[in-house]
Each structure stands twice: as C-alpha cells, then as structure tokens.
C-alpha cells in the first residue's frame, strides 16, 4: 500500500474533512442546544428556583457554614467531595504505579527532561522567604474556607506546591525537606481515611454516613456540623497535599535515575525498552 503522493493527499484529505465536518456539526448542535437553555444567572430559571433556594435560605442555619458553597460541597453534597478526593487520590496512585513501579520494573530510562538543577542563589533566597508564607497561606485558605472562597482542595494544592517549590529550587542534594513518595502517600491515604473516618463515626453514632450532625462534639447541630466540615476539609487538605507530593516525588524519582545513569557514565539510549 504505497500510493502515489498525489493520491495520498486526496485520500487522506477525506477523513480530515469528515472529522472537521463532524465536529463542526457537533458544535452547531451544541450551540443550538445552548441557545435553548435558560439564560445564565436568570433568577427565574429552574436552577435558581428549584433546589437552590433551600440552600440559600437554610445553609447557614443548618450547617453553620457562612460560605454557602462550602456548605453544599462539604455537607449537603459531602459524598461528592469524598468522591472527588478519591479521584485525586486515584490519580496520585496511578502516577505512582505507572511512573515509578512500571518504569522500575522495565528499567526504562524516563524521557530526558528535568535533568538540570534549578538552583541559584537568587531562587534559593526567594524560596526561603516565600515558602513559609505559602504554607501558612495554604492553612489560611483551608481554615477560612468557611467564610470565603477556599477550602481543602485549594489549600491542599497550595501546601503541596509550597513543598514542591523547595525541592525544585534546592534540588535533591539540598537538605531533605518535605515528604518522600512513601511518606507523601501515607499522608494522602491518611487524608482519605480521615474523611471516611468522619463518615463512619457519624454512622457509629447513629446517623447516616457523613451525617455530621450526630457527632458528639457538643453544642447545637449547626455548630457540630461546622466543626465536622472543618475536619472534612482538613482531610481533603491532607489528601490533596499528599497527592501533589506523590506526583512530584514520582517524577523526580525518574529524574534521579537519569542523573544516576549519567553520573555512572552509562550510555543507554533514552527510551530503550528493557
């Protein structure tokens, strides 16, 4: 099957045109559908009149969370949040398995990439100054999620990034800071387990799974729920921060192998399958 170049073009042009047509038609259909939707932010739309009013009216009273978004995310739909935490955890586990284990098993050298250290005095000083603030800001975002935008996910990412920045700037040869892959994984697991643990605790005290109101923390139900929500957010925080560290540690483990291979003078070509 080695057609003449001219024919090649013609033949291969057809699927491209087909693909473009299909996606254009899809886009057209979507646009037609979207035009039929209620307008964004329309106060008379079903989205604004059916379920939302109750959240608006009762969220603060029922969950104690000043931030309505937090109330929906961590309490009314806390199960979804648990699921999303699990999604992130799954991504971390997946990277760990695919990048670290599979690569190690096959003795593959990872593609050339982050082979150079970033270190420079300027970066070093900047990082020293910034990192504590980043970490502290992360905790702030977590705790303040109740009243303003923020929460466990955002805080966790910030926290994890803060740890990663140090590693990026100072390199492996600097002082060990932040968790290695195993410890990061432990953190992530602990976060997910803590979330589930709160759910199970609620069950143990006679409620439904994740029914924070039954937890024996004293005070009225809204207050208990607020505290539990904070606990859940902290769990998410730990899970996300741990996952970010897992991701970085996994990738940098590949870097280390490359570096080790270079320093040993091994001339194995990149990408050769063992």
């Amino acid at each position, binding site marked *: 099957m080695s057609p003449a170049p001219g024919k090649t073009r013609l*033949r*291969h042009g057809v*699927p491209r045109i087909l693909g473009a047509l299909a996606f254009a*038609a*899809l886009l*057209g*259909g979507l646009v037609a559908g979207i035009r039929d939707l209620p307008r964004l932010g329309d106060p008379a739309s079903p989205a604004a009149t059916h379920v939302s009013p109750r959240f608006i009216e009762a969220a603060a009273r029922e969950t104690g969370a000043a931030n309505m978004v937090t109330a929906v995310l961590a309490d009314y739909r806390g199960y979804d949040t648990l699921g999303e935490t699990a999604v992130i955890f799954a991504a971390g586990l997946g990277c760990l398995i695919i990048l670290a284990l599979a690569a190690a098993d096959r003795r593959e050298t990872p593609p050339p990439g982050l082979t150079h250290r970033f270190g420079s005095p300027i970066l070093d000083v900047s990082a020293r100054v910034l990192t504590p603030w980043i970490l502290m800001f992360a905790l702030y975002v977590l705790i303040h999620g109740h009243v303003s935008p923020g929460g466990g996910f955002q805080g966790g990412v910030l926290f994890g990034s803060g740890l990663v920045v140090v590693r990026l700037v100072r390199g492996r040869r600097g002082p060990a800071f932040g968790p290695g892959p195993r410890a990061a994984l432990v953190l992530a697991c602990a976060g997910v387990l803590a979330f589930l643990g709160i759910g199970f605790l609620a069950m143990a005290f006679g409620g439904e799974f994740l029914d924070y109101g039954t937890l024996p923390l004293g005070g009225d139900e809204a207050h208990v729920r607020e505290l539990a929500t904070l606990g859940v957010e902290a769990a998410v925080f730990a899970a996300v921060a741990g996952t970010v560290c897992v991701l970085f540690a996994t990738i940098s483990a590949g870097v280390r192998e490359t570096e080790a291979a270079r320093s040993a003078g091994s001339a194995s070509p990149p990408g050769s399958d063992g």
Partner: protein
Amino acid sequence: MTPSWEFLIYHPGAYLIAGGLWAGLFPSYAWATSGVFSFGAAAVFVLRRLPNLDFTASVADFHLIWYRGDALSVLFTVVFTVVAGLGLIYGWYRMRRGEAAAAMIYAGCAIATVLAGDWVTFFVFWEGMAIASTALIWLGGTEQSRRAGMRYLLFHAVGGALLFVGILLHLAGGGPIEVAALTGTGPPFWLILTAVAVNAAIPPLHAWLTDAYPEASTAGSVFLSAFTTKTAVYALLRIFPGAEVLVPLGIVMTLYGVVFAILENDVRRLLGYHIVSQVGYMVTGVGLGTPLALAGAAAHAYSHILYKALLFMGAGALIEATGFRRLSDLGGVWRRMRFMTAMYLVGAVSISGWPLFNGFVSKSLIVSAAAEAHAPWTELLLTLAAVGTFLSVGLKLPWFAFFGADRGVAVRKLPSNIPIAMGIAGFLCFAYGVLPFMLYRMLPWEIDYRPFTFDHLSSSLQLLVGTGFLFFLVVRKLTPAEKRTLDVDWLWRGPLRGAVSDAGRALRGLAPAAQEARRWVVTGIDAGLRRAAAGRAAPVAPAALNFRDSIGWTIFFAAAAAAILLVILDRA
C-alpha cells in the same frame, strides 16, 4: 417446583451420557469400564420395557417433560441402545478414550431426544447430539476430518438455530410445550421442518452426511450412521405425520441417493448415499401419513439402523483390514476375510429387501402403504429406488470390494470384537427378517400386514433377479472411476468459499487504507505532509488493524453520532 431427578433412574440416555462424560474426563482405563457399565445399565432398563412414565420438571417457566416413554419413543430407544452396544463392541480396541466418550454421549443424546416430551428438552439434546457427533468426526484425527467436522458443525449449527427459532415461535404463539404433531402451517412449521430436514439429510441439505461420515474413524462412522438421521425420522413421525410435502421430498431422496451411489467410489461415502436413499423411504412413509405408512416408516427406521450399522461395520472392517477406502483400490479380498464378507452380504441383502432379511419386512410396508393410498407413481419410484439399492450396495460394492479381480491387497487380521459385533448385527437382521411379528408388535400403530405372501415373494425376487441380470451385463461399465463426484457441497467448496475468501482478501486490502486514514485523522496534517514529502506510506501489517488509531475513530464516531442526533432532534 424443584426438578425431579428420579427420571434419571429410568433414562437409558442418562446412563450413556454419564458414562461418556466419565470416560471423557477421567484417565484412560476408565472408558472400557464406564462403557460396559453405562451400556449395561441402559440395556437393563430397555429390557425392563421402559416404564411408560412421564417425568417432569419446571425450568424457567417451562414445564419440562424429561422422559416420555410411549411406544414410539420406546421403539427408537430400544434400537438406539442396541446399536450403541454393537458400536461399543465393534470399537472396543479401535476407539480411543475420547472417541468412546463422544460416541456414548452421542448415543445418549439421541436416546434422550426421542424420550424428550417437551420442546426444550428435545432441543437441548438435539444440540447435544450435533456437538457430540462433531466431536466424533473430529476424532477421526485427519486434517480432512477436521475440515469436514467444521463443515458438519456449521450445517448443524444453522439447523439448530432454525429449530430453536421454530420452537421459540411455536411457544411464543401459544403452542403446547409437548412435542406433538404441529397443526397449521405458519413459520414454526416450516422452520422446524427445515431444521429436521437438515438432520434427515433431505437434498439439497444432505451434503453434510456424505461429506462427514466417511471422514470419521471406522468405528465412529458406525455410530454416525445410526443416530442423527434416524432421530430426524423420529421427529418427522412425531411432529409431521401426514405432511404431504414430505412425499415428493422422500421420493427425490430415495432416487438421489441411489443415483449418486452408483457413481461413488469411496466405500463409506457410497453407504452414506444409501442412508439418504433409505431415509427417503421413511420420509415418504411419514408424508403418506396412513397408519400403515407411519408404521412402515418406524419399522424401516428400526431395520435400517441395524443393517446400516452392519454395512458400516463391514466397510470399516474392510478399511481396517486393507488400509484402503476406495473401491478402485480393492478387489478379491473375500477369501482372506470370509466371515466379514458373509456378514457384509447379510447387510447388503437386508438393505436390498431380500426375503428372510429385515429390509424385506419393513420396506414393503411403505411400498404397500403407497399402493393402498392409491399413489401408483410413488410406489413405482420407490420400487425403482429399491432396484438401485440392490444394484449398488448389494452388487456393485461387494463385487468390486470383496469379489471381482484380486488385486492382491494385503489383509490384516482383525481383533475378534469386530466379527462378534458384526455377527450379532447380522443375526438380528436375519432374526427380524424371519420373525417380523417381533418388530411389528413393537410398533405404535396397529397393523395387519403379512410380508410372506406368494405375491410379495415372487415380485421381490423377480425385481432382484432382473437387477442382477443387468448388473452382470454392464459390470465392466460400472467399474468405479478414481474420481470424486460433485454434489451440492460443490457450492460451498467452490463459489461460496471463493466469494468469502475474496471478500476477506478485499477487506484485508482495505485495512491498510483504513489504517492510513485513521492515522491522518489523529496525527493531523504535519505528519501527513512529511510522509507525503518523503513519497512513501509506511506499510501497515493487517494484524495491527485494531491497534493503531482506532481511538480517533471512536471519538470521531462519537462526535458524528452526537452531531447527527442533535441535528435530527433539534429539528424535531
């Protein structure tokens, strides 16, 4: 309601199937033991005259009748059990474990089919029979048996599917679950009839028989000759008594088989054509539908199983002893295998309808029924087929195989189980020939028929003698040629196969093109331009068809499907 398992005690088929499974699954010494045990147990219960009981169970809202022992079922059960025993004796040394297992399961399924009282059970064992017989063919062990077995399986898979659909429609249309004569001529009638016609080898659906039976082992073909077609005859008797369409079909069968047998060179294929021919008598009998004709069909099936098994044993012995399977390689071996020759001749005169042998007392039932039903042409053509039967099985085959010019073919001594089995079969053919009432009293229809009248004897003998004259007149012209006769199987060996393989080749030719197209969709213009600039397209192995770029198509199809649906729905 829980199934009642008590019926298993009374079910000869269950013993044979269980014995077959046991022999098939457990180490080699087991087959003989389980063969003896299961056949013995089956035979004991047959000899106990099969209690006329119904055993039922409910499965998936079906009221199943596993076991219905009325006269018609018992008749077939008895002869199936007998021939299973003969086959086991015959194959005692020759059959390997798997073959014995397949044969026993095959026999057991055939018995279970005729004992089945409801459609579901009937179908289950009908299919079981098809699979077990396919295994039996495959165990012939040659490349040809492998291919023939696959063709056989496909044929019966289609037949089974037709039967399945027919039963489904029958039940869905509110038909009774019991296997009984079908009323009305809707789709179920024709579907089930076609399915049964496949198994009964009614032309043009017969070619699996002559294709596959000669490719099994010698012992395997003894079993094959007995069960599938005769179970179909049972089904016709049970389901389609008096279906007029069967009369012309049956007549065509009798003559078709005879004509092709005259041309045939392969010993077992010749006998296979005579199965087609003889089953044609039974089909005609079923189609005539008078009590005498139906009784004749049942009786002829009974006789036919015995003498056809004997003939296949004889042919098998010939092949085992000489190593040749074609008439043109054989000749003049009768001095070296006198007993086997004699027993083959017993089978040959039985099938030809000589007086004192069982073909005489059963075939004439059908012919007389045709006469009584005032169907002179039917009678005439059936008589013509009888003439042809004697010509090829009674004269041509023994002449060129056992007598005729001695080609000095070396003959190995055969183990004694083979003559024993043939002796028993020959004795039974003779016994039923001289004591026909033993057969008649087992028939489910009351008949008053005397075979040994002077008229009958004289006309039969005249026919046979006239045929004999002609044979010796043209015997040289009848010398089998080393040729293969084209039958309808030419269709799928030739054009159909070519079409399929051409289509496959065409599709495979398309694969690289599709491959390239996919690649372009996914990798986009850059890679494509570069390749075009280099003036070559990377060759793509067809095996990689599924691997490379199918995700692009998946997403393309998803987008296209969504787009089409949206366009349609938005407009609506």
